[in-house]
Every structure is written in C-alpha cells, then in structure tokens.
C-alpha cells in the first residue's frame, strides 16, 4: 500500500465493501453507536436522579416504572446505567487516545531516528511493559487518590508499549519501502514525509489497535471501579454497580449487577468486532 492508494480512496472502498457484506460488523457498529450516543445523552434522558434513594423498593424487580429494577438502596438502575455510561464508555476512550498519541509519537521517533534513540525508547517500553496495567492503576490511585483521573492516566501509560511496539514495526516497514526513498530523493522535507505520508499509512494499524485497546481499557477500568478505587459514590459507573450488586445476586436481586455486566460484555464485544475487522482490512491492504 502507498500514499497514492490512500489518496485514491482505496481504504474506504475496501472498508465499504467489507462492511456491506459483513452483518456482524454492521450490528457491532450499530450497537456501539447506540451505546456511545446513550453515554453522551444519558444524564438528560435518565428518568430519575441516579443518586436519589428509595425512588422504588429496595432490590425491586423490573417494572414499568423501573424497567431495569431498583438497586440495594432503592435507586433506579436504568438511570444509573445511563448516567454511568458516560464514565464507563468515555474513560476507556480517554485511555486509548492518550496511549495512542504517546505510543505513536514514541514509535515514530524510534523508527525515524533509530540508533540510541530507538534503543532508549525500546528499553523504556520494556520497563513499562513489565508492570501489569491494573497494578500501575492501583498504585496511581494510592498515590493520587480515588477517582477516574488517576486510573485513566495510569492505564494510558500502561498501554503505551503495545501501541508503540506495533506502530514502530509498521513504521519501520513503511520507511523501508521505495516510495519513502523516492520522496527523499524528490527533496520532500522530513516532517512532510512523516506527517503527510508515513502517519496516514499507519492509520489502519493504529485504528485496529485503538479498537482492541478500548475493550481492554474498559475491562480494566471496570475492575478498578469494582475494587472501589475508580468512580466514587454516589456517581455511578458500570464497574462499581457490578460490585455493589454482587451481594444481592444470591437473593435473586440480580438487576444491579447483571445489567451493567451485560453492557460491559456487549460493549467490549462490539468494539472487539470492529477492531478485528479493521485489523483484517489493514492486513488485506498490506497484501
């Protein structure tokens, strides 16, 4: 693949054709789209104040007034799911954006300059890679306090190595192709080669990794909230809702845990499908 192909719209055409015959991908796109929209407008369409207690019975079952039931202090679960969607969906997006920006920057620097710069970056990435993301996040919470900011920043750092390694390999491969040498011979400046030709060529790889990273980030952030270290009460998010409702499962009051759990599964699944398809297209284009 080359910049010429991208300029000619080869990638969108491949994507469009693939999307047209792939109903799983289309459903995943629709599902994620709906979830993202609900996350964005959740606070405005929630039927109840998500923090108001006893709007219904304690551990109430689904009803017309409360379609997803009520939780262990009588709060409306639908309202909490809707309002909590913001933190649950957008925080992972923050993680993948930050990690992608930093990872791509490091990868480009390593691929472009090579030598000791590449070696230094590789060692730094090795060090970060050696520590599990969730451990870094929990340490960050211990140092900077509870809430979403510290885990988001910590997970962003933890995810940098995956992005950087992947992109560095792709960037090195791209830089070794004849068209970059041709651009140099033509006297195109280094920044222009980098940002007008190299970076666009890496988009499919980055996009695929971003989608996959979102799923992992969502699961990790849910786990952190489950431990009580993420979003702080009374603000809802899906992970903390799963944790809070766990004790009610045995009593048959499954709504508080299971509905947010299903949403986490469905969201991660949808994003996983999208990521997998983007990866496949990137590979097809490479061929």
């Amino acid at each position, binding site marked *: 693949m080359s910049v010429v192909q991208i300029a000619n719209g080869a990638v969108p055409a491949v994507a469009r054709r693939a999307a047209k015959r792939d109903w799983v991908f289309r459903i995943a796109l629709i599902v994620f789209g709906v979830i993202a929209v609900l996350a964005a407008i959740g606070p405005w369409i929630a039927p109840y104040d998500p923090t108001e207690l006893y709007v219904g019975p304690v551990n109430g079952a689904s009803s017309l007034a409360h379609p997803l039931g009520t939780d262990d202090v009588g709060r409306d679960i639908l309202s909490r799911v809707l309002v909590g969607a913001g933190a649950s969906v957008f925080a992972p997006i923050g993680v993948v954006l930050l990690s992608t920006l930093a990872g791509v920057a490091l990868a480009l620097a390593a691929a472009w300059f090579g030598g000791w710069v590449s070696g230094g970056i590789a060692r730094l990435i090795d060090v970060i890679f050696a520590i599990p993301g969730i451990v870094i996040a929990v340490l960050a919470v211990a140092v900077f306090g509870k809430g979403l900011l510290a885990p988001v920043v910590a997970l962003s750092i933890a995810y940098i190595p995956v992005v950087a390694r992947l992109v560095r390999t792709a960037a090195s491969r791209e830089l070794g192709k004849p068209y970059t040498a041709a651009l140099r011979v033509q006297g195109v400046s280094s920044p222009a080669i980098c940002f007008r030709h190299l970076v666009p060529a890496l988009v499919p790889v980055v996009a695929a990794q971003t989608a996959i990273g979102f799923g992992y980030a969502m699961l990790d952030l849910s786990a952190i909230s489950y431990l*009580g270290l993420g979003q702080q009460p009374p603000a809802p998010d899906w992970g903390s809702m799963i944790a809070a409702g766990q004790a009610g499962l045995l009593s048959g009051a499954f709504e508080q845990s299971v509905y947010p759990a299903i949403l986490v599964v469905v969201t991660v699944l949808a994003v996983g499908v999208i990521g997998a398809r983007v990866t496949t297209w990137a590979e097809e284009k490479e061929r």
Partner: protein
Amino acid sequence: MKRTGIAVGAVACATMLALCGCTPRGGADPDGDTAEITLVDVLPAATQPVDDVTWAIVEGEPATLNPAASANLIVPNLCDNLLSLQPDFSIAPGIAESAEFVDPVTFVITLRDDVAFWDGSPVTAEDVAWSLQQNLNPASQWFGAFALVVPDAAAGIVATGPNEVTVHFVAPDSTFRDAIAGQGGAVMQKAFGEAAGQALGTPEAGLMCTGPYELAPGAWTPGGDIVTTANEQYWNGAPLVKTLTYTFVSDSSTLATALTQGEIDGAINVSPGARAVLEGDGAGTLTVGHSTASYSFGPASATGAGANPKIREALSLAIDRDQYLETVANGLGTVQKTIVPEFSFQAMTEAPIYQAGYDALAEPKVDLDAAKALVEESGEDTSVPLVVAVPAGAKEFAQTATIMQSAAKQIGLDLEIDEMQAADFGALFYDPTKREGIDFVATQGYLETPGVLGYPSLFMLPADQGGVFNWSGYDNPEVTQHLQAARNAVDEKTAADEFVAAQEIFAQDYLQVTLAGTYQLTYLNDDLTGVTTSVAAYSSPWALHLGGE
C-alpha cells in the same frame, strides 16, 4: 473476532440472566413487620454424638487465640470464663462457684475443686490469679474492665486459698462481676502461659485451658483451619461433637452457598443480605437470636463540622431508621434509640429501671425542616465536604454510607465517602493520623457481656478517664460524674439510677448516632442442634451442647 465469539458473548449474557432469574428473590419488605420474627437464643441440646462438624468463622482467621488479646468465636469453646454467661445474658456460676464483693473494694472468687486443664492438671487459685492479672496490662482487650483493680498485680489479684482468689479495688466497681463472665475472666494454666510468653495463643505456642474443646499442638494451620477435639474430661459434661473444625469464610455469598449446600455445617453472624437464600430450601435453618450489635456513626475529630452536635443531630433527623433497618439489616433488627441496646440489661436485677430510662428516650424520627434549621444554627461552613469513613467491600457499610450521603444532601450538607481497606480502617481506631481528614466513622459493634457502661465509657468519658474512642473531645462533667457514680455504686439500684441519669444527657448529644440494632443470625445444618444463638455466644462455650438431633 469470529462469529463464535459473538455467540459466546450472547450465550454468556443469556446465561447470566437465566441463572439469576432462577434464584428466589429476597430483599427487604418496605412494610416489613419485624414482630413476626421469633427470637430464639439457644437451640435444644443435642442427644446424639457426631464425629465431625465444620464451622465457618465469618470474621476471618484470628491473629491469636489468647483470650486477653482477641475476641472471637473460637476462644469461648476453648477457655472457660470464671462465671458462665447464659444465652439470655444472665450470669450463672461457672468455674467459680461464687464471685461476689465481700466489701465495697474486695471481691472474692471461690473456685470449684473438680475442674482440670486439658492436660489433666487441676485448676488452682494461682492459675486463676495469673489469668486475671493478664488484664492489668493496658494492652489487654479487657483492661478497661480491670481499670479499678489495684494496679500492682501482686497486691491487686491474690490467691488467698487453695480455691480462693481475692481481687482488691481502688474504688467500688459495679461492672466487674459482669466482666468476668466474659473473656476477661478466661482461665489459663499459669505454667503453660509463662512458658509460652508473648507467643501464647498463636499457632506455634497454642493454649492450655479448661474448655469443652481442646486445641492440640499443630491443630491450627495458619491460613487454613483450626481443628479442635472434644475434652472428654470436661467438668460440665463432654461435648457430643468429637472434632470441631473452624474454617474462615468472609465472603457472604460464598458462605451462604457453602452453608445451604451442606459443605459447612454452621456459622454465626451470617449476613442479613443472604436472608432469602438462608431461609430457603437448603441444608439447614437460619435462627434469629437476641443481640447487642448495632450500626452507628460518630465523630472522628475534635474539629470540623462532625464535632458539632447540631450537625450530628441534623444528620440523625434526616435518616429514616425504619427504612435503614429494612435496607441494611433486611428487617432483621430493631430501631434502637441510643448506643446502649436493650438486650444488654434485660437479665440484670434492675432491668425495669434501665428499661424505663430507655423507654423515656425520644424515638428517632425524620424531620428534614428541623434538620435544616439545625444546620443553619450550627454555624458550620456547609461548602466544605464532610467525609465518612467505612470499610471497603462490606455491603452493609456501603449502604450505610450511601444513606448518610443522601440524608446529608437533603439537608444541605455535602458528604463524601471514604471506603478504606480493612487494615487502614482498623488502624484508624488507634492511630490519630489515620483519622486526619475524616469527620465521621461508621461502625458496627456489639457488647460481649451484660452491662450498660461499656459503650458510654469508651465514647463519652474524657480520653484520660477511659474514653479511648472519644475523638471529638466530648467532656460533659455531669455525664462523667453520673457514669463514674454508676460504676462506683455499691448497690445495683444506685448504679441503674446513675446510668439512666447520664443516658438522659448523653443521648441528646449524639456522640454516636445509632442507626439500628441488629439480631444475631446463626445458620445450622438440620442434622445438628444445641448451639447458643444469641450474642452470648461470644462469651460462652456455644458448642458445648452441639451434636445430632
């Protein structure tokens, strides 16, 4: 991602819903009628021998079994107390045939002559004196109960005969007799204890007591279980259970499953949240008994809005106690007016005086307008958030904090929740630095022995007079005087009158805002019977009569 992945995800979601839908729904009944609950404090004594019983300890593995250093449900079956606490919280003779004040500052204990330690050696007055002297150490859990004993061990607690021990006091103490019906009166072998030193009660050193079950060397596997065996020579009749094994299960869901499936035979203090499952079709039965346990919150600092009694009263007025009880205790408890629970004095001679004093207290009520007015009057800066500390991972405390937060919001206060890890939460009771930035601490506590002065002494007396949890610096001379007079009273009526006078004052100062009293919940396999099911289990050999039906 393959389509099989989608299928797996869909199946997982469907399975979650299906499995949950099959579970019987529990939950609190908003109109729940607690009067329908029958309270049972002891199950009929067993008649059939049983080889093995596995018992779950929900509080987790203790650090030690030394009665002076640990309050747990294992020690009472190992070490006898001098007096015997009955399931109804009355006190009967035990190893001590009699234990009475012979004058206002002299207490004489007369021992039975047929009691032996597990190794067969007889219990002597020297053993008893040494055991009691352990509580003169400020590190002892029961030091407060021995605070008026002459502090010089050799002069304060003396073996005055082969079967007689005399305790000398610096001032009369109306609470001492009750205290030695608890672990403060636990009897250990002096020679064994001295040889073990600081290791007494640990897995390495073990114990040498007289109780109905024996702890053999190596029977405690740290991180695993504690295996005890029947003391066939027990002075009060050998138990019918040959081997009683304690295992440690803190997670309420795991425990409920293990109990109802018969993998574990019984547990005391099971979670009220699992009520529906435990009352359902399982291997055993849930028994509800009297307790002195209660949920409450109190100030953690002498500064800030939490230390202001008007703010505490305002929060109290904003919390619906009936709703709290149904939500947090699943209806298994009572609305409790003040920190001292009714069961703590039910079996005392002057119970009618205590009861009248309790009945005279105002019922907790919801009055948001009055609460808002109190916040205004308090003069506190309501823009500064208050912080309540609760232990992380405990559903009941998460609910308590959420209810407090909602109540605060209703009256114009901003309350933040600090869910602390267990070690940090435990440390804040003794380390002032851990309480920095915290305005309130929410707790659950219980009284192991009869008596009314335990809580007020800890929370209402000045710190230098025993109020170790009086973090707000509360110092009301009238309350202090009445509480001290109650403790120093030489007759029970005076003690009762003085306590009631103190209670009338301190109840209005909301040093601890009591949210609910809870019942003792015991689950026992239907093949077994004979356990104590009231809070007396913490201070009596509750498994002595355990066995088959």
